[in-house]
Each structure stands twice: as structure tokens, then as C-alpha cells.
């Protein structure tokens, strides 16, 4: 029986290399590894997504010593489930970093209460008027014709 492995035992340098293939430094944005996506933020990911740990261990073992770009390409083609685990862990960790969230302008799912007193904007500016003016679009049925009476 194989001993269960811990996040501490993950091959972080190999993971960082794969992560930077997925999210490189470009366009003024840092790479995955520069933001801790293979370090502290990955730990946070694994704290809430322990199911990613086993596939990460497996794919990192196979990736050791291999060209990272070639290995990411191979995973995408040959091991879609492992690729999905890698992509989720890396991007998930990247977007947990508050500095990354600031840079991409994403504050999280904010509380933005609906203002119940506001009159709907479409009533103020007539946006619905042409829809109403066009009239009913539903198809007459035997029952609707009966209720409408003789025309």
C-alpha cells in the first residue's frame, strides 16, 4: 500500500515550471509562480480542494525532468483529467492572490443590494415601449380563440 503523500511532498519546482507554461508573465501581468501559485496559494487551494492533491502528485511525478511546455501539451492531449486538475489548481491559486485580483479588477462576488425604491429604468426611458406596442406574440390556441369570442 502506498503511503498517502502530503502537500508538503509535492514537487514544487516542477509544478512552478508547469504553472508558468499555463500562466506566463506577459502583458504587464506576473506569471503563476511569481505570485505564489505553486507555493502558499496552492496550499490554500489544497486546503479546500483536497481532491486535487492525488492527481497533482501523479502528474508531477511523470513531469519530472521533462520539458514543461511539452509536458503541458501532452497532458492536454493525452490526460484531460490530469490537465484539468493542474489547470484548476494553478488558476485557482493565481486568482486567490489579492494582488492578482487587484490587477485584473475582480473584487470577488460583491454584495450589491437591489434598491427596491428605484423605479425600473425601462419605465423611465421607454425601453419596453416598442415591445408593448408590437402586441401579443403568442400563438392563438383553440381555447384562446374560444375565449376571445367571434371576431
Amino acid at each position, binding site marked *: 500500500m502506498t503511503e498517502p503523500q502530503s502537500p508538503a511532498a509535492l514537487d514544487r519546482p516542477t509544478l512552478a515550471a508547469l504553472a508558468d*507554461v*499555463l*500562466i*506566463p508573465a*506577459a*502583458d*504587464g*501581468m506576473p506569471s503563476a509562480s511569481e505570485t505564489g501559485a505553486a507555493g502558499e496559494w496552492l496550499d*490554500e*487551494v489544497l486546503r*479546500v*480542494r483536497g*481532491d486535487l492533491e492525488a492527481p497533482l502528485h501523479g502528474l508531477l511525478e511523470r513531469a519530472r525532468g521533462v520539458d514543461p511546455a511539452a509536458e*503541458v501539451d501532452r497532458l*492536454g492531449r493525452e490526460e484531460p483529467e490530469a490537465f484539468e486538475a493542474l*489547470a*484548476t489548481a494553478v*488558476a*485557482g491559486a493565481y*486568482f*486567490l492572490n489579492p494582488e492578482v*485580483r487587484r490587477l*485584473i*479588477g*475582480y473584487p*470577488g*462576488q*460583491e*454584495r*450589491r*443590494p*437591489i434598491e*427596491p425604491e428605484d423605479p*425600473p*429604468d*425601462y419605465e423611465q426611458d421607454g*425601453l*419596453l415601449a*416598442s*415591445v*408593448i406596442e*408590437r*402586441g*401579443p*406574440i*403568442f*400563438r*392563438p*390556441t*383553440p*381555447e*384562446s380563440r374560444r*375565449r376571445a369570442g367571434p371576431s
Partner: protein
Amino acid sequence: MPDPDVLIVGAGPSGAVTAKRLAESGFKVMVLEQGDWPDYTRARSAHPDYELTSGHYWAWDPNVRGGPGDYPIDESESDIIALMWNGVGGGTVVFAAHWQRSMPSDFCVRTLDGVGDDWPLSYEELEPYYVRVERDWGVSGLANDTAFPPGEGPPMLPVPLAPMGRRVARAHNELGWHWWPAPNAIATRAYGALNPCVQRATCLWGCADGAKASVDRTYWPVNVRNGVELVTRARVRRLLVRAGGLVKGVEYLDADGGEHVQRAPVTILCANGIGTPRLLLLSGDNGGLANSSGLVGKRLMLHPFGTVTGLFDDELDSWQGVWGQHIHSLEFYETDESRGFVRGAKWGLQPTGGPLSMTRPYPWGAENAIWGEGFHRELRRRLGHSAMWGIIAEDLPEESNLVSIDPAASDEYGIPGAKVVYTNSENSQRMMAFHQERAKESLLAAGAYDVIVAPFIEATGWHILGTCVMGDDPASSVLDRWGRTHDIPNLYVFDGSTWPTSSGMNPTATIAAMALRFTEHLIEERRDQRQPG
């Protein structure tokens, strides 16, 4: 404990509506629910790890989720995977809260289009029940949508159109196409047990803010206060039949595997379009219970689903809003045979999610993979700058699409699972292709500089309908027009299994209205109800 007057199996939307109305009328009601109450401490919408964690506890596919109320479903021969929530609240716990009445033509498909079957009632007959459940439920929307006969609307004002809704609405005005502020089972003000929505757009993964009208919030606490006995973690193994052909109750297992027999004069199945036929097929001797027509489990309809996403230069904050729908369009809902298919589809305009959602193969397409050198540019294009039409296509009933018992897999208590066989028909495929093209035109007219048609994926079977069809002829239907099985006069089905055709709408509004109508007829006819001695 004395036996209840009525035993209901399943605490989803139809069970909730049925139990409420019966309890209000003085019936002693017991409900057996195989799952548990949802745990909203697991709803992480206000936390940074929300996108990472939402798909686990709140997973829609029971085979992935493996929750305490789930059973295995073999979908190896199905084009669509069935999605559900097996627990108090049923599918409403994870539904998108699109509250769509069916349109008048949906009730007479055979008469108008020569396909499927007519329903044994009209829109006009069901309309008062829609109005009543909308008040009980807590629905927001705007009356007199031109796609429906005029009448009373929901009790709350609709959710805001949002920047994306206003853009698309203007475009539809220019195109001369229908749109309307969308109806949702989402509170826009404090309403009963509901808080006003705060637009986190996380409706599909457990509304932590208490604004989505799922029946675990809106009905079950009231039902329990009204004396309904709700037993959770109670897995019904089979229905018990008495000599003479009446159902005398059910056999169920508790969370520890303890066996129980619960007797009742009347039993109502509200276990969804897979759970209900599964139970009937697990019961009885030859081919299942109430199955003299041979139609239990057949005519399964699952609503093929498509999405088309537009990319805009404008800031749309498209991770916020409701999910839910901001506007809907029924422009192409009615049949036009020149399009090469019959029937139609409904569109709902939705957000697209936070940054992690921007990296997924769906709805963006594997050919548009975000990874590598262009990652940051592509993320900027998508995040906060996109809007999505969700398209629900009507599929027609076919006996070859079906639910059966899976002899190869059982739940943890040894009760056999279900098997689904479903093929996406030619009519559905042509319909979806047409609607995707029109949805692209809609978003381009709204100013999108690019549009992406999502690839077909299997995991979209939220709407499970038609597997115990109602009708007047016992040879061609399982149930009569009041949800009573033709074969067993004290056994009823009140869930979406009853539907003769599927409409192209999200079905919860009609499931709820039909359950209320069925229940009131049961109450009216109680003096003539045959019961086991």
C-alpha cells in the same frame, strides 16, 4: 404514531406545494425525503475560494456529488446527463430560479403542430394556479409580458436589467424582437422568509444570502410549522401493494439502514422524473407498479441546452447580477416550419462568472483554450466583458428515451440505481442550431465584437420530464388528468413525470402550479377516494 392521511415521497417543489395545501386543509401529512436539509454554511459565495469550492458540495450531478440522498444513475447510453438535488428542497436548491410559465401553445402541441400530445388542460385553466404559487413561492417579474395572455403577474418587481440586459434589450428593439424583464424565483425585496437579492450571481451553488426562493426556505419551514411530519434520510425501497390492488404504504430505510414500513391511505410520488419511475419499477411483480400501459419510465424529456456568449468592449461587471436571468426572449418560441423543425426554445440572458470560470472549456470551447502566451489578454476580453444567452430547447416525447432500473449498481443500502437512455433528436439538433445562429445575431446587434457558441456538453439535464405521462386513455398513459395512476386509485404522481410534452421553458413554475391543481382536486374528491381497508 397514527398513520398519516397522505404519504408523500420527495421533498422537492411538487412535494412542498402538495404538502402545504393538504396541511392547510387539515390533512395529516407525512413526507419521506431520502436526503437531508441543505447546509448553507457550505455556500461560499462571499469568500475568495467560492469558484474553487462551489462545484463540490453543490454539484448538480449526483454521480459526482455522492451526497447522502443520492443514488447511482448509469448514463452511458444517454446524450444528456441528468442533474438534480436529492434533499429537502429538491432541484430548487441548485436551480437557476428562472420562473417561466409555459405558453398557451405548450398545452396543445398535437393540435397545433401534429406532434407529441395535448395536455388535458389549457393555459387558461392553469393560469390561476400560476398566480397563487407565485405568491406563495416569492417570484419577481413584470406582468403582461406580450408572450403570454394578459393577467396578474408575480408579487415582486423584476430584478434589474443590468448593463448587459439593457444593451441586448436595445438591440432587440432595433431588430423588432421580443424581450421582457425576466421572471425569477428571486426576491427583490424582503418577502416572507426571503431576503432581498444582493446580486452575487451565485444562485446555482447555494444562495448564501437567502434571496433565492428554493422550497427548503419558502415552503418546508411553513409546512413543518403546519404539522407536516418531514422525515429526512428516509430512502423508500418500494411501494407496498395490498391484495385488491391498492397501495398500502411504503417500505423505507433510515440513515442507519433500519427498515420501516409506513402505511397510509393515499400515497403521492414527488420524487422527480427519474426517482418516481425508479420507485414504480422497483415495486410490484411484473414490469413495475401502475404500468399496465408499459409507459412508466418512457417518454423521458431532458431539454437540450445551449449557450451563446458575446464579448463586449464595455465594462459589464458580468460576474455580478443574478443567475437567474436578467431578460428573457421568446421571439422564436413558436413553431415556424420553414425553419426545418417544429416547436421552439426560450432564451435567458445570464452573467458569465468570475475569473476561474473564464478559464473553463465550457462555455468558451476547447478550441479557445486560454492557456499560455495569450492568457492575460484573453482573460481581459472575457472577465467582466461578456454576456450569455442560455437556450432551452423543447424536446419531444419518444418512447425510446427512457428510465429503467440499473441491475448493475445500487446505492449504499442496496437499492438498485437507475439507467437513462436518451438520444438528442434530429428535430432538437436542428432547433438548437437555428437558435444559436439567432442568438449570435442578437449579441452582435447588441455590440458584441465576438460571439462564441458553446460546445454541446452532456451535463445539462436539469429538467427531467414525462416519464409517467398523464392522459385520458389508460392504454396510452400512466396517470389520469388529475395525477392519479389509472391502475391504482390511491396512488398519485404530482411531479414533472406527469408532463405529456416538455415545453421549451424552465419547468418549475408549471410543476408547482400543476401540483397545486392536482392537490385541490384530490381534496375536492376526498369523499370518493378509495382506500385500503
